[in-house]
């Protein structure tokens, strides 16, 4: 009994979807726009995240040592830094490397090179470049040098300067922009998705409104609420599934185009992203479509089934 009813409901849902033709097409179009917005927001978040992590990657602090400090002393500090939970990576630049880099940088600046030659010895100190796991943690890393007893006085003496304070303003501003951008991005996605879901819901409501007369006839013929509701839900779910396929097909050329033209700008190849996350993205589209279509139908038809 249950399976016969289920079969009848599904068959009838498919039939009414196909026979409604233009109306179903309108539903699919609106639903496709909704799924497109949802998926776009996932892409935007991915691009934003990659851009943000690029920026984060560029923030660092460098500890400069006075010249002619033994490498062992520096290695000791490097070891201590690596032990800090906030620190992601520490890289060591020796005096010679610093000099070579300096020469390379000023290769066309004859005067500077000559002055360096005049000096006779290497005036540059070795340095440690520290990367934190998160931009907000630079302050605590910097404080580490200043006010705790982990480092002996002797090792403090060999530090020439820490460029954190020079960069502090920029770093602070950057971390606040990053966290705001993340929050704003999520908020905008949320609003866009909400709006498109409401539009889809209203479209499905209109489609069912057009069947108002039909529903009242079904009731008069003696059909129970569940039996009337079933085919409408099947049609709504069908709209969701078909729209998910349509959206996927639309995203293939769109992501290829974005991958070709925007990769340098956003820092991530959208087509590669689409390919490597295909199953997840497709599932999100199918599930969103089915849920939005199904639930909209349930809500929309409820008012016509009260007595």
């Amino acid at each position, binding site marked *: *009994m249950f399976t*016969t*009813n289920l079969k*009848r409901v599904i068959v009838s849902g498919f*039939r*009414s979807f196909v*026979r*409604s033709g233009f109306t179903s097409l309108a539903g699919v179009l609106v639903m496709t726009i909704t799924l497109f917005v949802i998926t776009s927001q996932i892409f935007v978040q991915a691009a934003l995240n990659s851009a943000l992590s690029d920026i984060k990657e560029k923030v660092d602090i460098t500890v400069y040592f006075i010249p002619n400090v033994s490498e062992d002393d520096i290695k000791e500090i490097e070891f201590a830094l690596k032990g800090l939970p906030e620190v992601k990576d520490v890289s060591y630049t020796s005096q010679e490397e610093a000099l070579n880099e300096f020469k390379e940088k000023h290769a066309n600046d004859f005067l500077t090179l000559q002055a360096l030659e005049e000096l006779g010895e290497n005036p540059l100190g070795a340095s440690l470049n520290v990367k934190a796991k998160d931009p907000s943690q630079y302050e605590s890393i910097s404080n580490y040098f200043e006010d705790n007893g982990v480092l002996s006085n002797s090792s403090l003496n060999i530090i020439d300067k820490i460029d954190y304070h020079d960069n502090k303003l920029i770093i602070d501003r950057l971390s606040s922009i990053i966290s705001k951008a993340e929050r704003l991005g999520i908020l905008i996605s949320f609003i866009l998705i909400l709006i498109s879901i409401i539009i889809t819901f209203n479209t499905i409501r209109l489609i069912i409104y057009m069947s108002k*007369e*039909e529903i*009242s*006839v*079904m*009731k*008069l*013929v*003696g*059909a*129970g*609420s569940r*039996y009337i509701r079933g085919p409408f839900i099947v049609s709504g779910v069908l709209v969701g599934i078909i729209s998910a396929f349509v959206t996927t097909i639309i995203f293939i050329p769109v992501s290829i185009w974005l991958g070709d033209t925007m990769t340098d700008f956003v820092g991530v190849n959208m087509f590669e992203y689409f390919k490597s996350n295909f199953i997840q993205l497709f599932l999100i589209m199918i599930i969103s479509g089915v849920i939005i279509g199904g639930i909209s139908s349930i809500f929309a038809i409820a008012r016509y089934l*009260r*007595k």
Partner: protein
Amino acid sequence: MIYFNKVTKKYNNNTSLEDISFTITPGEFVSIVGHSGAGKTTLTKLILAEESPTDGEVFFESVNIHKLGKKDLTNLRRKMGMVFQDFRLLPNKTAYENIAFAMEAIGRTDKEIREDVTNVLELVGLTDRSLHFPHQLSGGEKQRLAIARAIINQPDVIIADEPTGNLDPVNTNEIVNILKKINDLGTTVILTTHNRSVIDQVRKRVITLENGRITRDDKDGKYMI
């Protein structure tokens, strides 16, 4: 079988029916006549529980139908077959599916549906129209289809609200004959109409409504307005 007890129905202070009382016994063929706006359609809507009375009660087999819950109401409607002036067929279903839907709704098996629908289509002469949609059928064909749907589940009563209102005399004649045949087989029929020739053709009980009140109730009635 159907009993109206001092029923009054008002729409926003416009009285549609006033103090209506009558009884219909099983197997009767009752015609309800009156001008447009006399309250005929309101009366059928009260029997179907599409509307609730402002005052009074309507009983179907000793049950007050306006006190029923949703589920009982669905079961009640399964004992009634409806035919309307505007046919009220399901536009997205073929003739065959329109009838089959009424059987599916009460959970009959596929085999029963195949047999009964084929038989009833033959009975109303629509066998060659079974795959047509309502908009592809003529008025008379639509009404025959509606009647086929109404009788498919062997209801206790057929309620036909102006079934001939949109039809020409030939089709009208045919519809009345089908209804009479159904009544001869034992089903109660309630027919509303303002068509004189229909009443004269039926020659059964006639209840006359005027301005929401019953003015006549004749056992072997003629059209008397």
